[in-house]
């Protein structure tokens, strides 16, 4: 493979589409992933995230659109011509080669004769140098996953693609690997594009998340941004949980809007309003609610008349289901730090929350 000019820079997808017969897997996708960042493509199965990844890797051809790294158009380039490496979901380690040869595979194909140093270095990075003469079949799932990563990283690609690499690991190992992956990414400085359906995983590891649904990006931004200010119902429900209550804008009051919410009046900061019409879906995250029994001094917005219908203990927190007078059940998380009152099923409660934690979407938003 001739490397006249080193290909590097931001990854840019320009109106990329992919159709399989009648089915549109990726629909006119455009995005820029800055060099050196940890980027997550998040979405449910079938949303097109894996197809997008495969198009970046060169394992799938786009039906239309362009893919560029920096100034170089790689749309027509074959997979083995791209400075892009993939960590596959089931690792895809070559069963007939030793760990050492697996890791050295890409280096050898590029004509590099002396592979020892590079391979040893990356095996030390994943702390598995002692397994270099074993075969993949003799390794555990977690070890295979780290070797798959080493095999990709050793080539110092412009882009490292990860296709749900932690899916097959148990929870504890997954958490550990999430931290390790993030650390490795900062160590080697390569752009990571991580595909996952696990929103917690995306939020912990990525600098930027793009939430995909039905072949399109619904919203893109930092984890905090997406979480606190979702622009669609889908994003609001995919990242964490949300309560949605229908309301109407009544008046404007300086920086806030006055919204009529099932008979009560609440304040909505204009900066938190993403709706275009006056009929709104008001979103409040469960952990933002506070529960009060009667007779307390309340700050912020509040809704009266709730009755507790269910209590679930989660260790760190307690989840309450509260039925409101208009027959909607709202979800409330209270941290078990002694701050919440002692409540039981059937108790009457009032909900309060700080206005800046509200987000509003169009009343007919999906």
């Amino acid at each position, binding site marked *: 493979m001739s490397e006249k000019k080193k290909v590097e820079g931001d990854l840019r997808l320009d109106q990329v589409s992919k159709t399989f017969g009648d089915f549109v897997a990726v629909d006119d996708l455009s995005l820029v992933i800055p060099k050196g960042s940890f980027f997550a493509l998040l979405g449910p199965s079938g949303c097109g995230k894996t197809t997008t990844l495969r198009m970046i890797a060169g394992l799938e051809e786009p039906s239309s659109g362009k893919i560029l790294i920096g100034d170089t158009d790689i749309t027509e380039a074959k997979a083995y011509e791209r400075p892009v490496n993939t960590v*596959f979901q089931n690792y*895809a380690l*070559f069963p*007939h080669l030793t760990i050492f040869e697996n890791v050295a*595979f890409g280096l050898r194909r*590029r004509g590099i004769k002396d592979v020892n140093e590079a391979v040893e270095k990356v095996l030390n990075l994943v702390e598995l140098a002692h397994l270099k*003469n*074993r075969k993949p*079949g003799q390794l555990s799932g977690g070890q295979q996953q780290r070797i798959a990563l080493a*095999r990709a990283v050793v080539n110092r690609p412009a882009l490292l693609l990860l296709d749900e690499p932690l899916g097959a690991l148990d929870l504890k190992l997954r958490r550990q690997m999430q931290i390790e992956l993030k650390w490795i990414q900062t160590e080697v400085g390569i752009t990571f594009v991580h595909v996952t359906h696990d929103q917690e995983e995306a939020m912990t590891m990525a600098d930027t998340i793009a939430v995909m649904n039905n072949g399109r990006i619904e919203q893109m931004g930092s984890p905090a941004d997406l979480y606190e200010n979702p622009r669609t119902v889908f994003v609001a429900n995919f990242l964490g949980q949300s309560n949605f209550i229908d309301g109407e804008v009544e008046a404007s009051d300086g920086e806030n809007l006055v919204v009529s919410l099932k008979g009560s009046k609440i304040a909505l900061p204009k900066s938190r309003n993403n709706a275009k019409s006056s009929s709104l879906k008001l979103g409040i995250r469960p952990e933002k609610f506070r529960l009060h029994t009667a007779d307390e001094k309340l700050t912020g917005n509040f809704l009266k008349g709730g009755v507790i219908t269910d209590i679930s203990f989660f260790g760190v927190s307690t989840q309450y289901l509260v039925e409101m007078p208009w027959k909607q059940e709202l979800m409330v998380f209270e941290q078990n730090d002694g701050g919440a009152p002692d409540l039981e099923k059937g108790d009457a409660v009032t909900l309060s929350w700080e206005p800046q934690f509200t987000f509003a979407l169009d009343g007919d938003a999906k």
Partner: protein
Amino acid sequence: MKHWLSKNLIRIYAAAAIFYILLPILYTVAFSFNDADKRNIVWQGFTLSAWLNPCEPIGICEALGNSFKVGITATIASTILGTMIAFALGRYNFRGRATTNLLIFLPMATPEVVLGASLLSMFINIQIGAGLVPVIIAHIMFCISFVVVTVKARVASLDPKLEEAARDLYANEWETFRRVTFPLVAPGIAAAALLAFALSFDDFIITNFNSGTLNTFPEYVWTASLRGVPPQANVIGTLMFVIALAIVFAGQVISKRRQTRR
């Protein structure tokens, strides 16, 4: 005791069945040591003379040589042709699958008399007749199907993601085949080649129809059976058996070794 019996009855049966299967083979081996010239039917005494003079009976080693000529040629050709078909069937979606499957399957289901007779008929019609080349052609024909079946099973169990990983790691199409696909399919191809050779070497009916004056080893045994099969034939039979067993067991040891390595 009764419980032990009912639990192990089937095992005892299996052992008996296997003994039944091996019986004629053991007989063949035993009678290779028989002190008899032609009429090798009654035990007359132990001797190594047949083993020491394997080519003594007229025509036996020539027949054996012919069997090898045919076998090796047919094995190489049918393995190549059959492997290609197996890859096509196992990896690609193409129109005409059903017809292809049928065309591959039918030779295995056709009685050998019909295969042999039809080929001889055609060769006579186009003035080629019988001989070494028709036999080789016939053997290639019936071996292809068996090669396809054996290799296809192996191709189907090959994870396509491995080839994608190779391409992702800078291997072009040829390098991918050479370094990933082929090594992983090779055991299946080897098994297919072995099977093809065994089928070719042991074939009688089709060969008999198409060989004319040429003799292969099974044909030698057949004609000899009328007047008396010499113990040298048993020697060759025994050797075949032992070598084949050795190859199979070696294959199993090698495949075990491939899975693990320190």
